[in-house]
């Protein structure tokens, strides 16, 4: 995918520039000092129950749990699409592989169930034990799909991945003896944690409803923990040799190859890492809804994931999380709402039309702001973080106190 030099994808100056320059000038401990309370605030959102933010028609905790899952997916897809520039339209396939791995190993309907008598999974720890297996298997499936197809050009890759996503769904639908076909697999394992007399199945069980601290909130917190781990991992990759190779491939694959970047190898890395993160979120999903059916893994979902990445700003990790939030939160925000700021609206039908509005938003965004809401800025990657921070600090100081120019 070659970028046309006359197409300026990056804005000259944005709204968040001063904040970004200040943030980049801070040292790591300072960033944590400011970051941790912010993360805590975000984590406590479903409990604080802010009247403007909360959803009327559905449980806010549940919405936030879904957001956590989508954020994880968006981060994974961002590695593939945003950082390495490979358009993947079948990401839902990896998501499905992750979900089905957990379901096949833990659902009583599955022939490979390992939780019952004679199985090697204890029912309390089954979900957690399945996480690494799910990640491993999706990574393998990414490797399997990637190794023959990543030699293709961008457009072909998009359509082949789309086909892969459909194949996974159709396999789940057709292999009835194993996956239960259209009936799906039910009673998938989930973390048995915090079992009390009130909740004999633990706080993560679907039975934990009605209270402020419902199962949705617990799943949301779990996904935040996973997101932070994945973000640290992906962030470190981004600053490493691998990340620099990805940027080079994204900007100009031929040039990267000529400069000695083994493009195929690094594309395969991006694909595999992206896939394994997708598998992780699939496993999260399987545990949360405890029920896996093929219809949940339609191609439309792939497009919705891509929408989150593009909307937020491909390449920017925080941007894609924002994108995921918008994708999940906005339709739920309108659900059941009859007025907004005193203006009467038909919230239910707005929520119903969500694909129409997402499609429209994509088209308008591509014309006026193709880089997304929070675009990525190219950082000085070559000399490591210290030099980058030093350069930014100087830039920030100069911007704060402009030097008087005297004749």
């Amino acid at each position: 995918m070659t970028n046309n030099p006359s197409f300026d994808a990056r804005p000259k100056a944005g709204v968040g520039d001063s904040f970004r320059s200040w943030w980049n000038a801070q040292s790591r401990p300072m960033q944590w000092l400011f970051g941790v309370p912010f993360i805590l605030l975000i984590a406590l959102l479903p409990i604080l129950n802010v009247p403007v933010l909360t959803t009327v028609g559905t449980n806010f905790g549940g919405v936030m749990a879904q957001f956590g899952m989508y954020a994880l997916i968006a981060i994974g897809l961002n590695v593939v699409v945003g950082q390495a520039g490979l358009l993947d339209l079948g990401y839902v396939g990896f998501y499905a592989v992750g979900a089905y791995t957990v379901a096949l190993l833990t659902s009583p309907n599955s022939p490979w169930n390992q939780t019952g008598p004679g199985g090697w999974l204890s029912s309390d720890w089954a979900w957690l034990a399945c996480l690494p297996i799910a990640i491993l298997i999706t990574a393998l499936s990414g490797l399997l799909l990637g190794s023959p197809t990543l030699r293709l050009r961008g457009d072909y890759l998009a359509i082949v991945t789309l086909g892969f996503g459909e194949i996974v769904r159709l396999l789940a639908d057709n292999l009835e003896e194993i996956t239960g076909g259209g009936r799906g697999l039910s009673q998938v394992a989930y973390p048995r944690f915090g079992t009390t007399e009130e909740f004999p199945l633990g706080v993560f069980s679907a039975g934990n409803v009605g209270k402020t601290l419902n199962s949705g909130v617990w799943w949301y917190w779990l996904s935040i923990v996973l997101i932070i781990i994945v973000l640290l991992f992906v962030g470190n990759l981004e600053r490493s040799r691998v990340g620099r190779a990805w940027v080079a491939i994204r900007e100009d694959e031929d040039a990267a190859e000529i400069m000695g970047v083994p493009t195929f190898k690094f594309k395969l890395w991006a694909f595999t890492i992206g896939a394994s993160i997708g598998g992780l979120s699939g496993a999260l999903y399987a545990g949360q809804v405890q029920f896996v059916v093929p219809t949940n893994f339609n191609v439309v979902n792939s497009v919705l994931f891509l929408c989150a990445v593009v909307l937020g700003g491909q390449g920017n990790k925080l941007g894609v999380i924002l994108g995921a939030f918008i994708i999940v939160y906005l339709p739920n925000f309108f659900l059941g709402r009859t007025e907004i700021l005193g203006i009467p609206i038909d919230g239910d039908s707005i929520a119903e039309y969500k694909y129409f509005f997402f499609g429209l938003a994509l088209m308008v965004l591509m014309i006026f702001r193709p880089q997304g809401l929070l675009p990525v800025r190219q950082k000085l990657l070559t000399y490591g973080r210290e030099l980058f921070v030093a350069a930014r600090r100087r830039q920030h100081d100069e911007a704060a106190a402009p030097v008087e120019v005297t004749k």
Partner: protein
Amino acid sequence: MTGPLAQTFFSVSAAPPINFNVEALGNLFWQLTVDGLAYGSIYALVAVGYTLVYGVLRLINFAHSEIFMLGMFGQYAVLMLLGFAPSGNAYNEGTVMTIIYLGIAMIGGMAVSGGAAVGLERLAYRPLRKRNAPSLVFLITAIGASFVLQEFVHYILPTLTGGELGGVNAQVPIRLVAPEPQFTLFGATVTNITLIIIISAIVLAVATDMFVNRTKFGRGIRAVAQDPTTATLMGVSRERVIILTFLIGGILAGAAALLYTLRVPNGIIYSGGFILGIKAFCAAVLGGIGNLRGALLGGLILGVMENYGQVLFGTGWRDVVAFVLLILILMFRPTGILGESLGRARV
């Protein structure tokens, strides 16, 4: 390996999920071939739209499947305007009148699809071309447009037409032609619908091929596909060529829409174009995207192979066969069967 792992992984004795019904394939071979060719010619007509646009703009027009879907609604609306009530029962108007009505419906479908394709180009792609956007941006816009068109038919069209068109459910079919066997060929029954589809597709394919390869406009299309800059210097209007390619693609999709509704009367639904569009794109890639004759050939091959696969493995595996075929072809011949250049299609 011992213990529970070995026990559970190796003692699974479920029935084989895939059947290899070679016998049925052998018995039905010619029937499947004839039906597959009919289905494949629909793919071929839709695939031309993908391949021409790709040849000229290097863009996967993801929304082309929705252009096809609009064509289905277009011909349906024309038939309703002609006074046919949607009842699901077949009409019997006599051979001549049926052909005339089908012709009018086809023109209606072509007009709607062609208009929609040109409108899409003007509204969605032209602003991007002016900004010189990279191909990923085009593709995402196309995906967005696909959503918008689908949801337009899903939610907005019913309110515009008083519930007559669009909505969640498929349209009650208006059936002008009831399938009747005409003659047998190698033991395969050929119905009137198969005949109509194959004859119309051949006429349209030959006409398109002549247009692209023999006329002045066609030379312009090939010139822009080969080298846009030089073509512009030689006095070819690139914008006009682009509109023309979208128009041809749309018109053929509209024609394919009518043929498809003859074959699948219950297929007129807002989501009805999506999978067919993906497969038509597969057909275009199979034959070599950007190559007109490749798209036609790819459509026929895909239609026939899919039909064989459906009998060999079971009905649910039909789509899997199509996608696996696509991946295999791309692995071993990344530019498709006939190669990918529209410019060099005619030496």
